[in-house]
Structures are given as C-alpha cells and as structure tokens.
C-alpha cells in the first residue's frame, strides 16, 4: 500500500512525554507549596475536569447541556451522605459519588433526551434546578443552608490536604486521559462521525442514541467526581453552592475561550480563567462582564478558541486523537 | 445583453465547483443549461441568484455588476428563480405561497389573477398548506410565485424533475404566455430533447465547465452526448 496511517504528531512526540513529566512535578507539590496553593490547584483541577466533561458533551457529542451542575451537586451531596451517614472512608467516597451521579443520570436521560438542541440545554437546567430545590427542602442535609463535613476532623490536617491534592491531580490527569483514550478508540470514531454528520453516521450503523447516552453517563460520572472532590476540600455544602449554574457558566467560558472540541483547549481556557480571576478579583462583578464579553467575541470571531487558533496557525497537536494519512516513501 | 458572466468561478469552502464559466443571454431569449448531476448547473444558478457568493465583477445584469450581492437584493433587481425541488413554504397556504412572490414590489403584467389564469387548477387549492398538494401543482405554485415578482429574468431549475410527462407538458405549454410578456428565460433541464425543443440556445455543463454551446436546433445528438459525458 502506498499510504501510511499515523497517530502521533510532531508536537505530540514532545508534548505527551512533557505532560507526563509535568504531572510528576506537580505530584511533588505538597512538599514545597503552601496550603492555599494546594487548595487553588484542587479548585483548578475540579473546574478543569468539569470543563473537560462539558467539552466532551458539547464539543464531541453535540449535546449542549446547561445542567451538568446537577451531577456536580449530586457528587457533592453523595460524598457528604456516604461519609457522614454511611461512614464510608471519605477519600473512597469520591469515586463512589461519581458512580452515584452516573446512576442518577440514567433515569434523568430518559427525560432530557426528549428534547433537542437549545431546548435540551434549558431542559437539563430545569433538572438541575429540580435537584437544587428538592434538596433545599430536605432538612436532614441541612435544607437551604447546607451542612458541614465533620468526619474530616478525625483526619490529620496535612494528610487531609495532601490526599485531597493528589486526588485532584489524579482527577485532572484522569479527565485528560479519559478524553484522550475515549477519542482514540472506536467509540471516538463514532463520536467524530456523529459530530460531522449525524445522518450519515447513522446510515453507517452508528447507534446514535446509545452513543449519546453513554457519553452522558460518562460525563455525569466525571462531573460527580469533580463535585465530590470540590466539596471534600470545601468541607461545607449548600444547595445553591452545589447546584449553581455558575459552574456550567465557568465551564462554558473555559471551553469556549480555550477551544471547544479539542483536549488542549480547556486546559488553556482554565489557565486563562484562573489568571483572569486572580488579576481582576478586585473588580467584583466586572470580571464576569469581561468573561461574558470575551465568550461572545470569541464565539463570533474565533469559534475555535485560543488553542484552536494557535493549533491552526502553528500546526500544533499535543494530544492527537485523529488519524492522518500520508504517502509512504 | 441582459445577463452575462465572465470567467465565473465558485467554491464550496476549498472545493472548486465552477472553473471559469462564460455565459450570456439577451432580453427575450430562452436559453437552456443541460448537464449531468454534479456538473455545476445548480452551483451556477446559486451564484446567479446570490445564494452563493461570487466575485463582484464576474456577473453582470442589465449593466450592473451583481456578483456578491445578497440574494434578496438580486431578487429585487429582477432575477427570479424557481428553485430545484420547488421549495414551497409548508407553513404558508397556497394563496400565501403565491402572494409572497409579490414581496419585492416590482410592477408588471403578472398579477395573481393572471397567474391563476395560467394555472386554473390552483383556484381550488388556495387555502391548502403549501405541501399538501401534488408535485405538479407545487411546481405551478413555484412558477406562479416567481412570476408574481414580475422579473426581467426567470430561471427555472429542473421543473420537470419528478413529474409525470403530462404534467411537464402542461408546464411547458405556459412558456409562450410568459414569452409574450417579454420574459427572458434560463431553463435548466435534465431532458435534453425537451431542452432543445423549447429553447433557442443551449449550454452544456460538464465538471464545472462549459463543454458545449450553440443554437439548440443546430447541435447534433452525438455532439451533445460527448459534451454531456465529457468523452
């Protein structure tokens, strides 16, 4: 055959090893960084993972959800429920909470998948609101004012901080690895096909319904884990904090400004988001106006986001998920 | 010369569909465009009607460069298209589908009464939704809609597609009435014999280029065949 199929790219050959190295460096952080830096990273990791899940849903499966905060909140409350009530070791609760979120996503999908496009987006939001209002009415978990995670008091502070941090690192790396692995697989091929042309994909035998459902469940799991970890660090949860649409707002900004439909994009976007937040912190709501304006302008002028634009200009691709055909010599 | 194109090229993204089309038509002429599927006929019409962006100075209508103008402006200048597949509006009744043709506000001999005189069967169908009538009737409405804009140039894109021969004959029998009012016509047709019979001149498209042109009556079947298939 005169043609060859490649997966790796020029940048991925340096990029992937560099990323692994970087992860190792980050892993050593607890030994030389202070508590607030660790907390900042945990927050960063949770938001990045949440954004990657939103990216997977919207950028690859074409499902724009404004309701993923439902699973973020469920993850948080599941953690509290398992740790406080069932006395499951708190760190084990984190992945378990993700599973609970995915379980709840099953019946939820039956309802929301009846809607499409923009109406699917708002429908998922309604579902998140239902969870928020329902939990606000349950006094056992503190109702509207929320509750605290007291069992963590039994654990030594540095153990608590360091383990939470490493879990966060695992989450961030895991979400990137999840997208990378998923998209390079046959399942990923199906996703690309659906993204490009749903009808054509269906005619090739791709089961659109089950593919979208599986993505929905996987992202629910991811958002649940992110939520559980966030509130593990926060030690306090309330319905408004857990199910606030602001989580999705931040995810949308991160993904849009960074670059939707690529793995590197949300990483870039998350860095920009946090940089903006730290520098504009004194301006209060002003920073959100800037963020909103940035999202609007980016979507209109640079729909591929900052990373997408860079990748096009300089032919970069750190986490390659597509196959390239080239002539062999 | 009413309409002319000079070295017209057209692209769908990176894909080039037209490679330098030279075309012209005089007032009152009836010209056919024939060619296989994918030859570029529809692309050419899209460029003429403004649905596809063309460079400004490649298309001239009545002395004006119209390339790149928005489709709605070109329609108001007096180019009306009967699009392939009829494309009536399902949310509108037959009556409304016809009357929407008057939107461009051009004055001329074509009124709703005259159009109904041309297609009397439509009188009974006026209150039905646009997609609740037969293909042949839809084609009548589509032509009527285009006529009501009182255009200088009428473009008919494959109006015989999917219709029974008797319906096609019925449609083409109305041609003289249009020509009597001084209409200029471009007809895109799959049926080559029909195209030759009803038109004065003919262009054959093949893979985005004009492969043959001439007076309809003078072109031999074998010449057309060669130009059509590109052998």
């Amino acid at each position: 055959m005169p043609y060859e199929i490649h997966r790796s790219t020029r940048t991925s050959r340096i990029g992937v090893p560099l990323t692994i190295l970087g992860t190792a460096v980050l892993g050593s952080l607890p030994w030389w960084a202070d508590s607030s830096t660790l907390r900042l990273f945990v927050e960063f990791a949770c938001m990045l993972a949440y954004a990657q899940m939103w990216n997977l849903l919207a950028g690859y499966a074409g499902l724009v959800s404004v309701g993923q905060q439902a699973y973020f909140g469920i993850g948080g409350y599941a953690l509290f429920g398992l740790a406080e009530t069932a006395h499951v070791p708190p760190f084990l609760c984190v992945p378990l909470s993700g599973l609970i979120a995915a379980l709840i996503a099953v019946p939820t999908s039956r309802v929301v998948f009846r809607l499409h496009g923009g109406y699917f987006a708002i429908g998922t939001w309604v579902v998140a609101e239902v969870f928020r209002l329902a939990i606000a009415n349950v006094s056992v978990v503190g109702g509207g004012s929320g509750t605290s995670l007291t069992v963590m008091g039994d654990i030594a502070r540095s153990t608590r901080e360091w383990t939470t941090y490493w879990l966060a690192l695992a989450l961030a790396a895991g979400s990137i690895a999840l997208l990378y692995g998923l998209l390079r697989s046959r399942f990923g091929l199906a996703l690309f096909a659906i993204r490009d042309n749903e009808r054509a994909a269906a005619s090739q035998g791709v089961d659109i319904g089950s593919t979208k459902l599986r993505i929905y469940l996987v992202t629910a799991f991811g958002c649940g884990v992110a939520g559980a970890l966030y509130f593990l660090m926060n030690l306090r949860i309330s319905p408004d904090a857990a199910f606030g649409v602001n989580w999705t707002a931040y995810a949308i900004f991160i993904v849009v400004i960074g670059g939707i439909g690529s793995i590197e994009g949300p990483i870039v976007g998350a860095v920009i988001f946090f940089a903006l937040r730290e520098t504009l912190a004194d301006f209060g709501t002003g920073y959100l106006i800037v963020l909103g304006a940035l999202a609007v302008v980016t979507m209109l002028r640079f729909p591929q986001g900052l990373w997408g634009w860079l990748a096009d200009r300089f032919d970069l691709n750190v986490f390659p998920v597509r196959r390239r055909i080239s002539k062999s010599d | 010369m009413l309409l002319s194109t000079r070295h017209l090229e057209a692209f769908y993204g990176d894909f080039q569909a037209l490679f330098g089309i030279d075309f012209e038509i005089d007032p009152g002429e009836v010209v056919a465009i024939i060619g296989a599927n994918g030859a570029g006929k529809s692309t050419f019409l899209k460029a003429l009607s403004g649905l596809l962006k063309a460079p400004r100075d490649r298309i001239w209508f009545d002395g004006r460069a119209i390339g790149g103008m928005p489709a709605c402006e070109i329609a108001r200048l007096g180019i009306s298209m009967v699009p392939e597949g009829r494309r009536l509006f399902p949310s509108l009744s037959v009556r409304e589908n016809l009357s929407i043709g008057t939107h461009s506000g051009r004055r001329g001999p074509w009124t709703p009464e005259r159009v109904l005189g041309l297609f009397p069967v439509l009188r009974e169908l006026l209150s039905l939704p646009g997609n609740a009538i037969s293909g042949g009737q839809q084609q009548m409405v589509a032509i009527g809609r285009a006529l009501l804009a009182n255009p200088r140039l009428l473009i008919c894109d494959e109006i015989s597609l999917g219709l029974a021969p008797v319906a096609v004959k019925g449609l083409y029998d109305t041609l003289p009435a249009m020509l009597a009012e001084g209409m200029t016509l471009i007809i895109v047709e799959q049926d080559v014999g029909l195209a030759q019979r009803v038109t004065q001149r003919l262009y054959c498209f093949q893979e985005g280029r004009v492969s043959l042109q001439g007076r309809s009556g003078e072109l031999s079947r074998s010449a057309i065949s060669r130009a059509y298939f590109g052998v």
Partner: protein
Amino acid sequence: MSLLGALDMLLQGVLTGGLYALFAIGLSLMFGVMRLVNIAHGDVIVLGAFLGIAVSAGAGVGLLPVFLLVVPAMFALGYVLQRGVLNATLGRGILPPLLVSFGVSIMIENILLELFSADARSLKAGGLETQSISLGAGLAVGLLPMLTFSAALLCTVALEYLFRRTPLGRAFRAASDDLEAVQLQGIDHRKVFALATAVAFAVVAVAGICLALRTTVTPSDGPGYLLYSFEAVIIGGLGSFWGTFIGALILGVAQAAGFHWDPGWGVLVGHLAFLSVLLVRPRGLFPRTRD
C-alpha cells in the same frame, strides 16, 4: 381544602400564569421564527423591569409614560442585538447561538449588578398594586394581576394576528421554513429576524414592567424567569402562541398548587409538572410545528 379555597388557588394560579405568558411569548416568537433559543431571555425581562424602575425613579413620571418610553427602547435594543450580534450566530449549528446568548446573559446580569447592586427593587404605581376587585362569595382578584392577564391575552391575540394575517408574519413563517427560498422572494432575512427579536423584546418590556409592579426584582432573577418561559412554551407545544399562553397558565396553576401545599415547593412543583408533560407528551399539549 374547600371548594372556595380551590377556586381561589386556581384563580391566583391563572393570574400568575398571565404574567408567565407575557414572559414566554417572546421566547416562543424567537424560536418560532429563527429556531433561536435565547438564553438571555430571562435577563432581558429583568432588564426591562430595571429600565422601568430607572425611568420611573429618574424621570419621576407615571406608569403610562414608563411604558411609552421603555417598550420602544427595548424594541430598538432587540433589533440592534439581533442585527449586530445574534444574526452572526445563525446557520452555524446549535453552539454559537446558545453560547453567545449565554455570554450576553452573564453580561446583562452583571452589568445590572454593577448599576443597581443586588438590592431588590420594585416599581410603584400609586396604589395600583393593592387594589382588588371582589368577585363575590369571598373571592377577590388583584387589579394588577387582572390587568397583567389582560395584557397577556392582548399580546397573544396581537401576535397571532401579526403572524397569520400580515405580510411580516408571512415573512416570519416563510423564513422559519426555508431561509434560502425566502431570500429568493426578495425578503431580507436579516431584517426579518431583527424585527422578530425587536417584537419579542417589546413584549418582554411589558412583561418586565408588570413584573416590577407586582414584586421585587434583583439582577440575578433572570435565569429563573427564563426557565418559566421555557417551561410554558414546552408545556403548550412549539409553534403556537395560544399553546404558549395555555402552557403558562398551567404552569402558574401548578406553582400555585405547590405553594399552597408548602411554600418551599411552589417553584419545584412547577418544574415537576413540566417534566411530567415532557415525559408523557414530549411535543407539548398543542403543538403546531412540523419538526
């Protein structure tokens, strides 16, 4: 609950539904013409409310001048927003309109927060808010809710008329069917879309002012009203203004029932009613579109 109590609850629910109908009609219009779901819709309602409050406080004028100033201003704003920003998002898939309107939503909410702070405000109309009409047998309805309900009814009738019997409405319907074919008729779809949004914003302005008269408003209330509007449209069925109107009434009644049972459950029961309709009749109760 006594029959009288049930009737009263029903009445209050229906009247609240009138306000929700005013909220929802604009959303229904924009989706009907452009297939555009405007996530900023609720924030635009709140914007209308704050504009009314600002004009009333700033210019010290009565209620009628507030309407006469705010409604045309919002009409113009809608036209400019559609023409300048939202038109550019159409025809490129579902992401751009959603994401851009989401960004606009965040901007409106936070700009209002900057200008008005998070304090709850309302519009005073010199006693109009407290007047009521007695219906006998101990039942009474507030004058303001009645007027709001009538305004909603009027807007629904007017929009149906606009859609079904005017050339502009004909252009609206044709544009929603086939964007290319409508351009071939000489119709400038960019203008048509801008007019659709302008009309939607004008109705939203009326809704916002009625809202501010009826209750207090804060800049963060937008998303909640978006959800009510959306639920009303879905319950009623896509493609029909009367459907949206009825859907809004049903939502109002559901919320009233929930609230009656337990004040913390009002909004929640509304959401649950919406989800139930979605499960049982996904196309809504009176759908009219062909999708």
